[in-house]
């Protein structure tokens, strides 16, 4: 295992812990996106570019966006009542 891979494993573990430990939902969505970016770099370093592509597009763009929209929708409903 090279130094690069070791560093990326630590990065993924750190960002994953960040997702679990963040309590504010909006910050947690950002933490999920950061974790997805870390996973993308790890997959790239492990020579799996196809998986890295999928993780980048779905994990750091599509899923956080859907979460953010849901949070906005919930907030709007609470304010309206």
């Amino acid at each position, binding site marked *: *295992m090279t130094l690069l891979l070791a560093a990326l494993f630590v990065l993924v573990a750190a960002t994953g812990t960040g997702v679990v430990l963040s309590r504010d939902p909006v910050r947690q969505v950002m933490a999920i996106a950061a974790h997805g970016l870390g996973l993308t770099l790890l997959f790239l370093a492990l020579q799996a*570019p*196809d998986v*890295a*592509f*999928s993780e980048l*597009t*779905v994990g750091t*763009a*599509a899923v956080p*966006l*859907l979460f953010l*929209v*849901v949070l*906005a*929708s919930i*907030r*709007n409903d609470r*304010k*309206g009542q």
Partner: protein
Amino acid sequence: MSVRFRLLLLIASTIILLPAVVVLALGMPAFGAHPLPYGDAINRDAPGQRHISNMVSAVNFDYRGFDTMGEEFMLVTAVTGAVMLLRGTRGESPGAEPEEVPGRSVQPAGEAIVLICRLMLPVSLLFGIYVVLHATATPGGGFQGGVIIASAVLLLYLGDGYRVWRSIVRSRLLHLCEGGAAAAFVLTGLVPMLLGHAFLENILPTGQFRDMLAGWLMQIENLAVAFAVAGGFAMLFLEFLEETRAPKGEE
């Protein structure tokens, strides 16, 4: 559940599960070792048999193309279900206005953001199309390219706001993309059966190795997946963003 009970549960499950985790971790193959023979077999045979250099596409669209068809219909079903759930009581009129929180003014997007979004939208679209078209030559393919295209269209919402996004992105076109592409995938698979071959068998000449258009039947399936994924994800984005619009009395 009290905190005390939860702690007890945590300790008990740790004591029970930890030996199993240790045994599994020690029994795993070494890092980087791949004892299964299939990857090596594909790497050895696919360039000669299918004339394409992206083995992931060879597996997805040819060697196990039938599985990909199942995945395609999983996506169609999931998006259809989400759309039905979300649209149920809301309707789909394109003239709706975004909802505003009382007491919080809505700031228009800054000029820099609008400019960057308008510049990046065509570039991202082009990159998505590039990824789709080079499915059999370089990493990427219909799924990844389709998601990139759907995300690129989303820059409309980020830069120009809800009204422009809603007036340009039409759900009927997205339905057509998604459903039509899924049907095209199945029909492509049925054509070889009409000629007496197996379902999805690659009956066309596969072209030159490393050529962008090598793979033929795989190219058609790849395009179908790209349209279905782009339409499906854009549909999801549209329906989720519609959740933030102002409710109307008549709907």
